[in-house]
């Protein structure tokens, strides 16, 4: 019961703020609603007993990524572009396409429920109490089975770092204030 209340709460917040995020005109507002969504998702993670991810989501996403976003928004003076949002035909079409797709996938998922195990491989989830401590399990997995991805991720982040530096660097002489 509590589960379902929690779920519906988090899910409701997540979906609602996501919807607001994509519809708000003001980019800062959007960012705030995204943060709300991410926090709600973190709640879902917690409910799914992924404590480590819950923390990671809050720290990394909300604390790191979103700050970056807002920082950039400040930098690029979004207010100039705020005014002329027109609802054009293309957007209308786009919306229809997306919603159709969503509806279609929903139907698919709905039908998938008829499958044994709701279309998933294993019937019920393991009871919560039998789960080992999440962080430990994650760490074990991360440093044994998924050691290589871990290493690749470091390369990925290196790329991101180098890339961000390259991109943000002012070209010498070109646009020097």
């Amino acid at each position, binding site marked *: 019961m509590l589960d379902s209340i929690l779920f519906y709460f988090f899910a409701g917040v997540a979906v609602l703020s996501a919807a607001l995020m994509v519809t708000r005109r003001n980019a800062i507002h959007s960012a705030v609603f995204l943060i709300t969504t991410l926090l709600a998702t973190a709640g879902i993670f917690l409910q799914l007993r992924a404590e480590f991810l819950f923390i990671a989501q809050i720290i990394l996403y909300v604390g790191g990524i979103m700050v970056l976003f807002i920082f950039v928004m400040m930098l690029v003076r979004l207010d100039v572009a705020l005014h002329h949002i027109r609802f054009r035909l293309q957007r209308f079409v786009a919306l229809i396409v997306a919603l159709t797709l969503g509806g279609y996938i929903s139907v698919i998922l709905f039908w998938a429920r008829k*499958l044994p195990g709701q*279309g*998933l491989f294993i019937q019920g989830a393991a009871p919560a109490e039998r789960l080992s401590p999440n962080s430990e399990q994650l760490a074990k997995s991360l440093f044994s089975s998924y050691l*290589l991805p871990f290493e690749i991720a470091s*390369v990925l982040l290196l*790329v991101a770092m*180098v890339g961000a530096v390259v*991109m943000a660097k002012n070209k010498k002489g*070109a646009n020097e204030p």
Partner: protein
Amino acid sequence: MHSILDPIISYMHGDGRVILPEMFLLLFALGILIFDFLLEKKEKHLNAMLALFGVGFSSVGLYLQVKQYNLERANPIRETVGLLGFHQTVLVDGFFIVFASLFLAATALVILLSVRYLDLEKEQEGEYYALILLSCIGMMFMASGIDLIVLFLGLETMALSFYVMTGFLRANKRSNEAAMKYLLLGAFSSGILAYGFSLLYGVSASTDIRQIGRMLDARLQYTSAHSFTDWLVILAFVTVAAGLFFKVAAVPFHQWAPDVYEGAPTPITAYVSVASKTASFALLLRLLTSVFGGSQATWLYAIAGVAVASLTWGNLAALTQTNIKRLLAYSSISHVGYILLGVVAGNEIGMVGIMYYLIAYVFMTIGAFAVVVVMRQRGIIGDELEDLDGLYERNPAAAVLLLIFMLSLAGIPATAGFVGKYYILWSLIETHHPVLAVIAALYIVPALYYYLRVVIHAWQKKPGQVPAPQMSSAQAIALGAAVFVSLAAGLYPEPFARLAHYAFGL
């Protein structure tokens, strides 16, 4: 005797051996990033040297892997799939080896092409070469990974590097715009792909693609026996396919390609069109063969549809292009159509054909772009068809090379492109897809038309008042290598055919 090297040596005999080439690349990438600080502005091209060394060492590493793999293959007692490592998340087999050699070759060629180009663009920086090497690492993991996570991270490493490299000419609006579009669309498609991966994990409880494949087969058996439609798997397939089709630029997921090709620095255009596409095909093939192999009959026509659409769209759109890079972008879309037709055939010859086609495609496309790179001079971008006018008078060697690459791209015999198409058509005939074969064959004709447009500009138009493009020696080497393979794989295809067979352990 114990020495400090012992752990390294033992590592190299264990997990280390399966990522040897990647390790070298990473080392040199880091080396470049550090070394870059030490260099004067005029010496920045030494970074390229270093990067080439990296590729060289990586090749040596690859060669060591080849030797080990061959040894294991030759072992009569134990059936082997290849060199496994890291808890069976990477697999070094013929498939990887051939793809990795293609990546390395493409990387080396692109580095060679870049030096003078970056000089002209005044963007000679170490990060560029580092990113090239890093993206190559990503590609290699896309070919060697047999774990969804490895594959995804490899893909992202490659993709992120490409976003940056596309926008490397920061002062250039086109470059900015291309990078922006590439990034947004790429990230979007990665999201879709990730969604698909998550579903794959969901339906099989594993991230090992071999395990996933087995699971899907079991599910297929089960669902067909009970006449269910396995919608989750379908959804997973569709999202994964959409993500990958985006990366290979198949219609209707292709639209980033022309814009990015046009906006990116030309060597990077070559790299994107060649390496990124090849790597994505490596991934696609891995997934389609080992994950979705069992349900081939169900997705066959979907892929065929995409392939035909790519052929049609690519060829038709290319007809009216006036920008060579855009033209080649559309042409590369049509090439994707051909390669996907090989996937449709899906038999041994089809696979060999894809491999051969990719080998040919890498070299002829890089060659074609290399000519465009050569056209870049101070004050002239050189990527419009008019810029080619009278190339034959201005630089006959470049014109001849351009001709050869264009013919090869069109698939005229005695060039590599023909043999590639030949294999694809063969596989289609063999798997009884005559209609597809006819479509594929007939599209050679409009394709030739637009390739000829390029040739006409270079050979049959009068030159304007533009200086003769000069080839740097690095570019000459790159062009030489490209033309060598484009011709050799057409005149004496045997070694290349062997290579293509080798990729599939044949």
